[in-house]
């Protein structure tokens, strides 16, 4: 694939508040053994993209620790690489970017150093298994200047985040844009993923820097659409799980318990989702374990009951404990006789014996990294 990938590890719009307090959006754990970025990286690698840059603002220790050299994705090559692009990476790079366009402006040197014709750029606010090769074929065949990827879905969230809805003509051209409204109605929503020519992007970034522009959407994409430039749309046929706030995070995590969602994410021929490996032992079920309708990672030790939940690597669930409708992240220890319902428990937290903690699907109970109850 004659393209490079550019990943924006941060949302710049403030999402998943507590989950991103200590990490970038890209490093948010998802699906019992993955991080959000794993899906995007795997999609790119599966499409034959091997030069991938990841821009970050801060809090990127967790992300770097996870990705390391990129070896699990075979990205530690001599002729290509996984490039970390934190602030202050180069001589004329500038400081901490406040939005995507600024992140691009800061990393022009990286973009210029590569020979690829196209660039695929994406934020990390969603999880999906996407055939990017098809998206490229569409982009090239349509002769678009920019192809914007979208999905048809509804939108539920508490936070006032900006999600774009497109107006799409019969030929696939995008003719309008607006902020999407909340509700059950299915709408064509932007997933913040774009394909365009690398040299075009470099030129746009250089010009916009001189003009003091900072927003890719508001100052580049929208004016192009308004001016009738050829901005095409490409629909993702697979389910897209947005990461918007804690409630959608829990709802979308629990969607993995549906066979069709699991199949679309994990069982696509030739498009595996890869992640960093930990050499965990197999999951061990105790004599009184009772686990139903749940996704269980390796390295876990389960002696109690787990229903409708996502259990990450290395979690311990004690005796006479009941975990329901919850997401329990890596290496959390849950003691004996605990009750958990609609909870999101972040990494390395410890819940001691006989605690009872509950939220609701719209307001999950959240416990932070390393916290003890």
């Amino acid at each position, binding site marked *: 694939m004659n393209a490079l990938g550019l990943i924006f590890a941060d949302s710049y719009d403030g999402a998943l508040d507590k989950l991103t307090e200590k990490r970038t959006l890209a490093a948010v754990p998802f*699906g*019992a*053994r993955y991080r959000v970025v794993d899906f995007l990286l795997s999609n790119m690698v599966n499409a034959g993209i091997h030069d991938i840059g990841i821009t970050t603002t801060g809090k990127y220790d967790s992300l770097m620790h996870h990705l390391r050299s990129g*070896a699990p994705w075979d990205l530690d090559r001599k002729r290509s690489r996984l490039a970390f692009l934190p602030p202050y990476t180069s001589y004329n790079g500038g400081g901490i970017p406040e939005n995507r366009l600024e992140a691009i402006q800061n990393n022009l040197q990286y973009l210029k150093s590569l020979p690829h014709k196209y660039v695929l750029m994406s934020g990390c606010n969603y999880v999906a298994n996407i055939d990017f090769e098809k998206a490229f074929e569409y982009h090239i065949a349509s002769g678009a200047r920019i192809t914007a990827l979208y999905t048809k879905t509804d939108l539920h969230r508490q936070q006032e985040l900006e999600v774009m809805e497109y107006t799409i003509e019969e030929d696939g051209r995008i003719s309008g844009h607006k902020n999407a409204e909340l509700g059950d109605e299915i709408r064509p929503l932007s997933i913040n993923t774009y394909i365009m020519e690398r040299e075009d992007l470099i030129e746009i970034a250089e010009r916009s820097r001189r003009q003091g522009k900072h927003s890719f959407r508001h100052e580049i994409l929208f004016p192009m659409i308004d001016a009738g430039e050829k901005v095409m749309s490409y629909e993702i046929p697979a389910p897209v799980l947005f990461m918007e706030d804690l409630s959608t995070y829990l709802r979308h995590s629990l969607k993995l*318990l549906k*066979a069709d969602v*699991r199949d679309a*994410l*994990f*069982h696509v021929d030739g498009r*595996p*989702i*890869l*992640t960093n*490996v930990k*050499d*965990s*032992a*197999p*999951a*061990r*079920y*105790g*004599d*009184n*374990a*009772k*686990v*139903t*309708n*749940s*996704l*269980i*990672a*390796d*390295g876990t*030790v389960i*002696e109690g009951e*787990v229903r409708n939940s996502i*259990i990450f690597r290395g979690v311990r669930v004690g005796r006479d404990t009941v975990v329901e409708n919850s997401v329990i992240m890596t290496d959390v220890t849950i003691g004996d006789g605990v009750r958990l319902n609609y909870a999101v428990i972040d990494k390395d937290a410890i819940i001691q014996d006989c605690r009872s903690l509950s939220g609701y699907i719209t307001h999950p109970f959240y416990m932070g990294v390393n916290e003890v109850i």
Partner: protein
Amino acid sequence: MINRKKCIAMLLAGGQGSRLAPLTNDTAKPVVPFGARYRIIDFPLANCVNSGIDTVGVLTQYQPLELNDYLGIGSPWDLDLRYGGLHVLPPYQAAKGSDWFKGTANAIYQNIRFIKQYNPEYVLILSGDHIYKMDYSIMLEEHIKNKADCTLAVIDVPLEDASRFGIMFTDKDGRVTEFEEKPKHPKSTQASMGVYIFSTDALIRYLEEDEADPDSQNDFGHNIIPKMLADNCRLFTYLFTGYWRDVGTLNSYWASNMDALGDMPTLWLNDPDWRIYYRHSFNHPQYMGEHADVTHSICGDGNEIDGKIEKSVIFNNIIVEEGAEIKDSIIISGCTIKKGAKIEYAILDGGVTVEEGAVIGGPAEGGTLAVIGRDVHIGKGAVVKPGESVTEDREGV
């Protein structure tokens, strides 16, 4: 600058393992799957790395394709190094002809050049058919302290089992005074684990002498050790007290797998200080369905389980449909167990399909293991009796 390693390991991985058939029909014993996600060879390799030994020669011979694929360049064990690391050493052709490895000692003899290349002070000899977690560095310390020519790791076995092993007799300092290979009437219970540390000079000297002897079987246990003992070399034992099992038979293989189960397993795989590394197969986390009922078991990744599983070892990418029951069994990767099938006290090799209502095996108590070979198809309602070994498809009824 002259590079040199203090200690390198030579891992004998060429054995056929015929007593593990049909699991070893198409593959070498060291690469037989174990413990829901490992291969047998992961244990000695992880032991090396966790003991600080970073140079391992793996001697292969029988059915090496899968083994070579699995080992690769050793990266899963951090053995992909600039200097040292993992090296696969197959039999080879030389100017004066070519030879298969004739015995354990001959296999090492044919690779003396590999040893000399690293110029180590000590050579650790391992075999690829034991499940154990052992810190070789402690044994090496003992070897050095004793100024030994060879140190043999031993384990205390029950007297009734002792005649299956090489048995050591030692004086009060642990120096070996007598050695008997599989004695009919064992006088001691110190059994050789097949783990040796040699001082390199002594090793090379005795390998060369052994090779020159046309009557020798070229075997460490039968020839090298008795010869060294006869020559009054300094042979010492190192008593190992941790978990160790020879998994050379289907029964011992099954039993060792079962040791990883339960709330207090004797084979503790979760030990954060002694990880067993393995080559990953990248599957999604296992999904337990609405009707799943899994107790006293270990499970790998990529499974979709909706049946009842008890006291079993379940590998990767396995589908167990609603109403299927599995007990006291080992199910290796890629198997599909359909509705209402019953499996008890059995080993299913990879890729087996068990159709609806089929019955395999019987109660473990007093029974014998049923074994289904790789990729075998067991038809709807078919019956596989306890003790059967099935390597061809069985039609349904």
